[in-house]
Every structure is written in structure tokens, then in C-alpha cells.
């Protein structure tokens, strides 16, 4: 099954970027740009709830563009995990839920981690790379 993830972002409930990892896209961004893009996404996510024709809208879950898809998962506390991947990539929702589990295990349970701050947890990075690696293998072969 061909699957290729370009990048992963995690933003806190105020819209600040706390984690950004690029897995080999040509459009790798510097820190400032990634911060801006994350804040913009946070605002767009909120505005999309206002435009809903029926009540109970929780925000954008999938954005389909010409060259990529963006899958977003929002936890109950407002932390957003979103991944930029190739169009048509399957099973991104389950990957995002799994990344959320890794976040709760390796970041939130880390006593040295300050809430809403950028993530600097080595175990989180290691496990995250493993989780994404199996999707990235097909991409490396391209």
C-alpha cells in the first residue's frame, strides 16, 4: 500500500506550534514559516466551524488540495495534530490517533514537560519516527 507522509505538525489549544517534523518534502519550511502556517491553520479550523449549516461542527478533518491532502485530528482538549501527505493516502486518521497516544504517553506523562510548550522529548521523537517510518518506506523508494 503506497503511502507517503510529507510532514507532521502539532499545535496547542491556543494555536501555537509545539512540534513540526518534515519527512522529505521539497517544500521544507523554516521555523518562522512553520509557525505562521500553524497559526493560520488554527484560525481556519475555527472559522470553518462558524460556516457550518448544521450545529455540532468540530472543524476541518480533511483538506484536499492539488498536490497534497491534509488530515487533522483534534483532541478533546483542543490540541490539533495534522499531517500533510500524498493525495489519497489511506489510514491517516488511525495514524493520527496513534500519534495522539504517543503524545499522551511520552510527552504529557513526562514530568519535565511544560504544558503548551514546544516538545523536546527524545522518546516521543523515537517512537514517532518508528510509527511514521513504515509509511515512509514506500516514499523513499520513489
Amino acid at each position, binding site marked *: 500500500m503506497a503511502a507517503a507522509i510529507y*510532514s507532521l505538525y502539532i499545535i496547542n489549544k491556543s494555536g501555537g506550534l509545539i512540534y513540526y517534523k518534515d519527512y522529505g518534502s521539497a517544500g521544507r519550511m523554516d521555523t518562522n514559516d512553520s509557525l505562521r502556517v500553524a497559526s493560520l491553520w488554527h484560525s481556519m479550523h475555527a472559522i470553518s466551524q462558524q460556516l457550518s449549516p*448544521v450545529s455540532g461542527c468540530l472543524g476541518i478533518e480533511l483538506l484536499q488540495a492539488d498536490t497534497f491532502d491534509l488530515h487533522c485530528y483534534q483532541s478533546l482538549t483542543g490540541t490539533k495534530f495534522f499531517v500533510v501527505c500524498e493525495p489519497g493516502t489511506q489510514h491517516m486518521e488511525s495514524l493520527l490517533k496513534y500519534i495522539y497516544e504517543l503524545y499522551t504517553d511520552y510527552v504529557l506523562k513526562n514530568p519535565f514537560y511544560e504544558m503548551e510548550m514546544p516538545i523536546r522529548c527524545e522518546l516521543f521523537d523515537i517512537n514517532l519516527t518508528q510509527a511514521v517510518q513504515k509509511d515512509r518506506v514506500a516514499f523513499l523508494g520513489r
Partner: protein
Amino acid sequence: MQFFGGSEISPSPPVPTASGNNGHMIYMFNRNGVCLLYREWNRPLRTLNAQQDHKLMFGLLFSLKSLTAKMDPTSAEKGNLGVPQLPGQGCSFHSFRTNTYKLSFMESPSGIKIILVTHPRTGDLRDSLKYIYNLYVEYVVKNPLYTPGSPIRCQLFNTTLDQYMRGIA
């Protein structure tokens, strides 16, 4: 439907799989942000008044296009965020989905934006949007009484659009 000079309208695309009350609203904007058309068929919730709603929708589209152009993983150099993109310049999105609705978007080379808000399980509506654009060309642009850049007041266009939406909804 036959028009002068032969029909160039492609045949109606197939009905999407989800049935029932599929179509919620449609918006059409021109390149300057003027709302040319807003029709709703099923909208239980209205959070803002009409003016603010249109402005918010246009603003959302503008920002999302800016975002997708910047986030494009296949192109190396892009402009800065917030720089207005010409139609067709940079990577643009064609739809997004939330848990309660799906928004499908199309921009013509002249900057006419068509937005359809439907049920979340609707399939790919790009062909339907192209068909609606053709309806706009035939019934609105070719109408000698229509001034470009003004809101659409063509009864024939409205009825044909409603009929088409009932067909795919």
C-alpha cells in the same frame, strides 16, 4: 440542452452515492469578492448575518488558498504567506470536509469562485462544479441584460441550478 453554436456542456455527471438532502448551500464570488450568488436549500443553523457570512466565506477561501500554496510539498520556492495568488498560480485546494459538512471549491481562470456546501459523505464534486460553471456561462454571462460583477438575478439560471442540485442530491 442545445444552444447557439452547438452545445459544449459536458453531460451531467453521475449521481453521488449518498442520497437524501445532500445540497445545503451554494456561493459564487467574482475575483473582487463580490458575492454573485448565494442560494440555500437546507440550512438549519445560521451563525452570522448574510453580509458577514459572505465576507467570512470569501476570507476563508482566500486564506486557505494562501495556506495551500505555502504548504505545497512539491514546490521548493513559494512566495510569502498572505500574498494574493492569481487564479491557477500555486497549489489550490478543491475540497475540505468537517464532521457536519463538505465544502467543494472551484475557481475559474477568470477568478469566478464556486462553492458548494453539501453532506459530509458526498463524493468528488469537481465535475459538478464544472457543470455549474457552464450553466453560469450559458444562462448568466450570455444574458445581454446581465452586468458582470453584479449579483445574479436570472430566474432561468436559478431554476436550472435548483433542478440540477435536486438531481445530484
